[in-house]
Structures are given as structure tokens and as C-alpha cells.
């Protein structure tokens, strides 16, 4: 079987790109990373051609065929490279994973954005409350398990762990600590970061927090 040609169009701060990097690492799939510039630069022709509808990263190019939207990319990766499955085997288990994937995608990052873009005290307060309420459901579904996928690190874990590189920024500007509010969730973050596939794929939270600080200045929030 010929060697797969796998490329990832990504941007260093994007938690959605970090997810894909973790998934590829978990599957031992070699790939070439092509970095799009950050907010200031123009989008490359390759990105526009590969994702004409949204013009956004991440984009996975597998033998030049594009796959877009990070959750969709993770499902694709799991189907094409089925060894070490990320999703449960049974239909119901898969549906639970997809449910939480949808929840995480719709709620966590937008709520986090509301936290770091909030200007007045009362806005910060309500954004913090909203974010913590969202985490409450995740903490609840994790329960006493080591991972959202049960005993093994899997699909939902990967989708959420990329976003956690932004959590220290949300904590800083929201005035809270996840480990005080949800110690089990915080323990899951630490446990997941102990995996090389995660620690090598995620951008350091310090770098992200500096980036968020810079954006706050740019948007006139501080």
C-alpha cells in the first residue's frame, strides 16, 4: 500500500486545528503541517480552494482531497485509519459521542469567547456563569470515568482537550479556576496532558493567553 499523502492546513492558535493534530498523533499518521498566517495575513489560495464555503482552518488534505470542519475531520480520520478506534464500537455509544461532540462544538468556545470579550463587570459575571454552567454538564457526563470515552482516551476527549489550551485565558479574564469549580474535569485535563500526543499537539496555554491579551487590546476591551 502506498504511503498516504496527508497535509493539514492549520493555524497555531486554533483549538480546532489542535484537535486534528492530536487525532493524527493518536493514529500514528504522518502529515505535513502547512501554517496559515494568523488574523492579519490574507488567506492562502490553497485554503480558499480547499474550503471554498467557509475558507477556514483546519483542512485535512488526504491525497489532495479536502476534508473540512474539525469534528468531521476526526470522524474521517477514525474511519480511514481504523486501528486504535477513537469512537465506541456500538451504534448507541457512537450516538452518545456525537451528542457530546455537538454540545462541545456549539457551546464551549462561543461561551469562552463571551468571557474574554466581556468589558463591563456585569458582562464578565454573566459570561463566567454561562461558561461554568456549560462545563457543569461536561463534568457530569465525565463522572467517575478516566476519560469521556470510558477507560480509553477517545473522540470526545480529543474534541474537548484542544479547547482547554484556551481555558487559562478564560480563567484569567473571567476570574475563576476550573480546578476550584470542577476538580474532576481539571484532573481529566491533567491526565490528558500527560499523553505525549496531547502535550506535543497543543499550543502552550501561556502563548494562547498572550494572544488573547493582544486581541483584547486590538478590540479595545482593555
Amino acid at each position: 500500500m502506498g504511503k498516504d499523502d496527508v497535509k493539514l492546513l492549520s493555524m497555531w492558535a486554533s483549538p480546532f486545528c489542535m484537535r486534528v493534530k492530536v487525532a493524527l498523533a493518536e493514529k500514528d499518521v504522518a502529515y505535513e503541517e502547512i501554517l496559515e498566517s494568523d488574523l492579519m495575513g490574507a488567506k492562502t489560495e490553497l485554503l480558499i480552494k480547499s474550503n471554498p464555503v467557509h475558507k477556514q482552518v483546519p483542512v485535512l488534505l488526504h491525497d489532495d482531497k479536502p476534508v473540512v470542519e474539525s469534528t468531521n475531520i476526526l470522524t474521517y480520520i477514525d474511519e480511514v485509519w481504523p486501528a486504535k478506534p477513537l469512537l465506541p464500537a456500538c451504534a448507541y455509544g457512537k450516538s452518545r459521542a456525537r451528542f457530546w461532540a455537538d454540545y462541545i462544538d456549539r457551546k464551549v468556545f462561543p461561551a469562552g469567547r463571551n468571557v474574554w470579550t466581556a468589558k463591563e463587570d456585569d458582562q464578565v459575571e454573566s459570561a463566567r456563569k454561562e461558561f461554568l454552567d456549560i462545563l457543569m454538564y461536561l463534568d457530569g457526563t465525565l463522572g467517575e470515568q478516566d476519560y469521556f470515552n470510558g477507560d480509553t482516551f477517545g473522540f470526545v476527549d480529543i474534541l474537548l482537550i484542544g479547547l482547554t489550551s484556551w481555558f487559562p485565558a478564560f480563567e484569567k479574564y473571567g476570574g475563576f479556576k476550573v480546578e476550584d469549580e470542577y476538580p474532576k474535569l481539571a484532573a481529566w485535563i491533567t491526565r490528558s496532558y500527560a499523553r505525549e500526543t496531547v502535550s506535543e499537539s497543543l499550543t502552550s496555554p501561556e502563548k494562547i493567553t498572550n494572544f488573547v491579551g493582544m486581541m483584547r487590546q486590538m478590540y479595545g476591551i482593555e
Partner: protein
Amino acid sequence: MVKEEVVLVSFWSSPFGSRVKIALEEKGIHYEYKEEDLFNKSSYLSTINPVHNKVPVLIHNHRSICESLNIIEYIDEAWSDRSPQFLPSDPHQRSQARFWADFIDKQLYEASKKIYREKGEEQVNNGKKEVLRILKLVESELGEKAFFGGDNLGFVDISLIPFYSRFYTWETFGKFSIEEECPNLVAWAKRCMQKQSVANSLPDPLKIYDFIVSLNKYYHK
């Protein structure tokens, strides 16, 4: 053969619920339908969908599955021995199908509400422009195919066709013709309506229009 318990909890006008009805009927799955009053939600709904408290919910042998696209994939997998298969077998084609279904999910319903719920010509026109942009993108993806799924209804067809019941409402509020703007897409919709599963699952467009008019009276109080 063990009798399976299959229950669909939904609301008659929900396009998301219609998707599930189509999928169940396409696979020939017998189910019990339970109508939920969305204006007076039952405590039952909060037990089967505690996170979102929304319809549709599929209950299969006492386990609930929520979110319509999730439900369609579940039906495809749990009854994989029954044709048709909604998602193609090739992983890249599957990713394409999921992309378009997700695109429709995230954009169309919200954009359409601007046409019929907003007051003010500018907002209505913005809604109209957005809906047409979405429909034209989707129409170009259909191309020359009979259905998004090829020769038969697939994942994207099932995701989109319930919104056809709302075309009359959008056109009436927005004063435009979707058939004029997207003739291939409307031809596709009429093709879908010839399928029993679709015809049986979609509410009457006039009933939808009357319902939305009466909802507006409630929202604009």
C-alpha cells in the same frame, strides 16, 4: 424476532422531527409517535433530553438519542442490515455528506427566521439574501444528480427536504419565488415528494404558514 421499542417524540411542525420520520419510514421501521407540546413541555421530555429539553428524541429500547442528524446516523448504523444506507460507504464521500448536512443545520433555519419573524424590510431582505445564498450553494452541490445521495435519498436529502414545507412561508413573507432563483433545487424537492416516506412525513405548507402567522402574533406582542 425480538420486538423492538422505537418511539419518536417530536412536534408536528418541526423539520428536524420530519427528518427522523423520513429516515424511519425509508428503513421500514415501525415506531410509536408521541407529540410533545412545545409551548407546554412535559416533564417526560426533560427526562429523555435533560441537556437540551428539545425535540426530536428517538427512544430505542429505552435509550434516548437526541439531535436529528445524530439520530439519522444512529438509525443508519443500528439498522445497517436494512436498505437504503443513508451515508455512502466511501469515507471521503461520507465526510462530504456530513459537511453539507451540518452546513444546512447551522445556517438555514436561523437565516429563514429572519424572513418571517423579523419586522422591518431591511431585516426581511437580509434574511432572503442569506437563505438564497445557502440554497444556491446547496443547489450547486446537487449538480446534475437526481438526489444528493445519487439514485436514492441520502443523508443530505433527508436533512434538507423538510424545509421544503417552509418554502411557501418564506416566499410569502419575503415576496420572492424560490423556484425562479433555484429551479434545480425545487425540481429535486418535487422529486423527493414523490417518495412515500417524504410525502407522509412533511406537514402541509399552508398549515405551516398559518402556524407561523399565529406564532408571530405571540412573539410580536
